[in-house]
């Protein structure tokens, strides 16, 4: 008995030894995940500390919920939470609406060249960095020589507007820019689902006298439904996050626009690097991470109920 046991042990050790090269291969990736992902997770504890660079991050004294008290004493907190969530809701609604619309549009085109050409072109804005997009937006909105002020507004007899100083226009501007840079992406996703529909459904429906609207309502939309639901749920999972470039770079970091352009991400960045207000930044960042986790988790649980394949877990 004893012999077989030690033999077994030896065997399993030898068996384990076979895997050592595999573990070594995984080492660089594992170290990276620890540095880039797991250490910052532990770093969330900073939200409960009074960070003092002089004594270091680890030795900084604990301060309980003080940072959160500071954060909610200002009106900023309400503002940037509201902005983040409202922008995301608008983006989710309009983005998916436009995506479905364009996917149907692509399906309508019969000319093969134009069909292919459109698919290639609408993805170009999605390919660009936010820096380039800011340049393009600036070409349109620059106060002195922007295309809007010099060429479009005069057509309607409207006086030039100093766009970068007027917060009220930015919800519209940012939504348009967002739709412009991202509609190609969602359209292509929806279109790739549409390609899979058996075309004979449409013919059969037409023979039965169905018009375009009935075809869309009873064939196209039901076919797209799973994709629509999943894309919306995934976006809802990210409702506490915003595209830093879109909200920081495109409004050119203009302080006069904060009331409509400040989101959690820009607030956290400005607090940490420009205002040196680490306390509030860590508190806002902590809330974002925790709420973000709850949202992603909930959204994924719902997705996995609908379609196991599309969920993360």
């Amino acid at each position: 008995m004893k012999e077989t046991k030690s033999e077994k042990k030896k065997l399993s050790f030898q068996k384990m030894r076979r895997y050592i090269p595999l573990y070594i291969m995984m080492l660089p990736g594992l170290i990276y995940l620890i540095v880039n992902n797991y250490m910052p997770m532990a770093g969330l504890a900073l939200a409960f500390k009074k960070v003092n660079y002089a004594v270091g991050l680890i030795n900084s004294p604990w301060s309980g919920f003080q940072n959160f008290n500071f954060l909610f004493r200002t009106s900023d907190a309400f503002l940037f939470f509201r902005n983040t969530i409202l922008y995301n809701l608008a983006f989710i609604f309009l983005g998916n609406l436009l995506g479905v619309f364009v996917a149907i549009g692509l399906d309508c085109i019969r000319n093969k060249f134009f069909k292919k050409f459109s698919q290639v072109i609408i993805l170009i804005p999605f390919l660009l960095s936010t820096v380039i997009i800011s340049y393009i937006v600036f070409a349109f909105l620059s106060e002195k020589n922007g295309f809007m002020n010099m060429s479009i507004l005069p057509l309607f007899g409207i006086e030039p507007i100093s766009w970068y100083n007027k917060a009220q226009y930015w919800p519209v501007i940012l939504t348009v820019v967002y739709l412009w840079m991202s509609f190609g992406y969602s359209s292509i996703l929806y279109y790739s689902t549409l390609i899979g529909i058996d075309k004979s459904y449409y013919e059969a429906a037409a023979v039965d006298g169905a018009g375009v609207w009935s075809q869309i309502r009873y064939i196209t939309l039901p076919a797209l439904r799973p994709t629509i639901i999943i894309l919306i749920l995934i976006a809802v999972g990210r409702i506490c996050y915003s595209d830093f470039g879109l909200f920081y770079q495109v409004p050119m970091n203009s302080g006069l626009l904060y009331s409509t352009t400040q989101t959690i991400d820009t607030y956290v960045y400005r607090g940490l690097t420009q205002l040196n207000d680490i306390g509030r930044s860590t508190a806002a960042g902590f809330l974002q991470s925790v709420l973000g986790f709850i949202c992603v988790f909930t959204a994924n649980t719902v997705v996995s109920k609908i379609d196991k394949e599309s969920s993360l877990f």
Partner: protein
Amino acid sequence: MVYSNKIFRFVMGFIMLLLVLACILPFFLLIASSFTSEIALAQNGYSFIPKEFSLAAYKYIWNVKGNILRAYGMSFFITGVGTTISVVMTMLFAYPLSRQDLPGRKALSFIVFFTMLFNGGFVPTYLIYSKIFHITDTVWALIAPYLLMNAFFVIMVRTYINSNVPNEVIEASMIDGSSEIHTLIKVVVPMSKPIIGTIALMTAIAYWNNWTNGVYFIQTKRELYGIQNYLNSILSNIAFLQTHSDPSIKITDLPSVSIRMALAVIALLPILMAYPFFQKSFTKGITIGAVKG
């Protein structure tokens, strides 16, 4: 035939034409402005047809090309090095994960997967990289944070290997006496070329377009700026001048409008020129990562 109603198809086709134009016309605005003389730009603003054709902006850039070429070079270097390390690290991690017999496989998969659910956010990430690892103002600042290994790509590659490289092939190679690394290079990699191409492309685009790492972590060493950060610094100076009147910066020190537009065109060129060649893989990358990315 989909949608037999001709009027509907015509209207939709027309709207598609408008959308396609909306996607490309802004670029024509940039290009046309870069070829317009500074005086015409000051009088008429940006326009689609140059009122006064001029190559002055490009001539100016050619004369001071040092900074721009260096920024360009940095962008290519960071993209090349970053993408290479990233793909190698992803393959080295994904292949063992794909091995059903690896002890601890589930726990390791969970370690990757959990990073997609929860993250520490900007503040701890920034403080850890800058105060503990001191990568501020080094080239690593542009390579390491956020971009080096994408958890989603790891899972994608693992799944691809599982369903496209049969276990028997790997076992046969092991029986022949190949080491694991040899099996990975000679057997798994050649059979996973399509997915490697896709993640390499998506990673390269992410590196080329990244400017946030430069903004976060490059504080004094401007010579490390890639083309995106170079453009960004010009734009921020202009933005600063619009809201503050700082007598120490003269407006004449900043590149004029046409030069700025010419710079944007130059930064755009590589990606627009390469796009027709990688467009197919890009579309594929989008639809694969579809719903999950």
